[in-house]
């Protein structure tokens, strides 16, 4: 079967939205089970005490990264159709930096604040209002920062193309990096507990 199924088999919009609810349900449930609705657990990585954020993020990226590679290599998934975020290098680097600062100050990122709210945390609801305010502020100042927003436009560029290495090598490198970072994280956590 050729995928994305939505594209090749023309799902109805209703089916697409039902899948959205279902996928969102699983996403939310998993974040809750991982403890990712708890801001003390989320921020603990920045105090070198609990590396849950790193472990969840990198196992997820590696799992789906390897999966995507296999699916596209075997021709099951047409990566030419798959929508991914385009690269605008500078706003993404700086945006990531500001997000990291806001993450430690506020205790959440957008998805985890949803789980904070559904666990009954009032501070998560306040964070969510902050999120909306920051977005409103962005829309307001957008005309003045549009130049920066559009800077570093590199289109659809992957790490392997930028580095000029085969995908296999990149995947192997990321697997090794993830494995080493997990080992290091476990070591630091053990050390902190003693």
């Amino acid at each position, binding site marked *: 079967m050729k995928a*994305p*199924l*939505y594209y090749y088999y023309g799902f109805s919009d209703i089916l*697409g939205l039902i899948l*959205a609810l279902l*996928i*969102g349900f699983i*996403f*939310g449930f998993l*974040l*809750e089970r*991982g403890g990712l609705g708890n801001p003390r657990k989320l921020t603990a990585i920045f*105090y070198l005490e609990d590396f849950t954020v790193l472990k*969840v*993020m990198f*196992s*997820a*990226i590696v*799992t*789906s990264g390897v*999966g*995507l590679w296999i699916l596209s290599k075997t021709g099951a*998934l047409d990566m030419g159709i*798959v929508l*991914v*975020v385009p690269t*605008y*290098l500078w*706003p*993404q680097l*700086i*945006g990531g930096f500001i*997000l*990291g*600062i*806001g*993450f*430690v*100050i*506020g*205790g959440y990122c*957008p*998805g985890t604040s*949803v789980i904070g709210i*559904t*666990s*009954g*945390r009032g501070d998560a609801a306040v964070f969510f209002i*902050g*999120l*909306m*305010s*920051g*977005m409103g*502020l962005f*829309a*307001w100042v*957008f005309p003045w920062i549009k130049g920066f*927003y559009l800077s570093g436009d*590199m289109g659809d560029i992957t790490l392997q193309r930028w580095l000029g290495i085969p995908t296999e090598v990149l995947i192997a490198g990321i697997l090794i990096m993830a494995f080493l970072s997990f080992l290091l994280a476990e070591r630091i956590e053990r050390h902190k507990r003693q």
Partner: protein
Amino acid sequence: MKKNYWSPYIVGVLLGLTLLSTFYLMGWGLGVSSAVSKFTAYVLHMPFPEWVEKNQYFGTYFKEGQPLNDWWVFEVSGMFVGGLIGSITARRFNIKVERGPNINTAGRFIAALIGGALVGFATRLARGCTSGVGLSGGAPMVLGAWAFIIGMFAGGYAIAYFIRRLWR
């Protein structure tokens, strides 16, 4: 009795499989902040319809019709239900304010508001958040997504020491 959290590696692998299935089924990944942005535009549209529609950023949402009629808005609605059922079934649902030992509730709320605003602004600049850019762009090895991830950890570690009274 509260249940224990699952192993972060298991959660990560299951999350990765969910993301992979989303790509396979829909042809795009997971995301949260664009839905929050559309919801924000929708809320602001009630008191200020003209301003929102003429705004260069929010205005585009209304040119495509109703802003809440969007795949990720439905996905985030599903997240609320999944998160709620998750916390109830694990006996973790509890109305409270999560804060460090050296800060009061008012201080925690101010920090949450400021942090939230910074994150909200940052997600629009980066074209997504930890989910939409970090995970959904990181897995297909998008250069900008990896720049975002590096920036995020750099920003977090750069500020953590100076605001340690918020959490420690």
